[in-house]
């Protein structure tokens, strides 16, 4: 089942976007079925 969230897989990419948009990153360490 899709969560509807556009998950990024690279932290560095997300941090770059976070810096440009003054946002935070939510980093999920998961073992849930994908």
């Amino acid at each position, binding site marked *: 089942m899709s969560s509807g969230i556009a998950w990024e897989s*690279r932290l560095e990419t997300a941090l770059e976007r976070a810096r440009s948009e003054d946002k935070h990153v*939510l980093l999920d360490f*998961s073992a849930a079925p994908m």
Partner: protein
Amino acid sequence: MPVRVHVRNQADEFKRLGERYGVQWTPTILVIDSSGQERHRVEGFLPVQDFLAQLELGLAHSDFARSKFAEAERGYREVVKRNPETEAAPEALYWAGVARYKASGDAGALSDTAKQFQERYQSSSWAKKASVWARPAQTAASAPH
């Protein structure tokens, strides 16, 4: 910006980031500021409302850590207002008092917080922590004349 690393499907990335942030268990969810600094951590599953409250708490913690105390206080009070039944609420109430004190230098912010904890969340560890801020109750002997 949501990032997910999976323990099996992305084993190398999971190991790399897990070592960087000292992650020992799944699920672990981190709120990270744009400099890469961890500001809040949630370990284990939570019901949706509790989880959302933790994320809001993490954002307020991030403001606090960057000395944006007025913004942090607003964030903490929103956590209490929007999620009063969650475990995040008493923690947020505690830190709202600290943030107000940091912003104003007024120790009354702390004693007011202790007073609020006498009326709600009495059994929480945060109430115990705040109890040291309580003004001593006036007795007949100590009351000003």
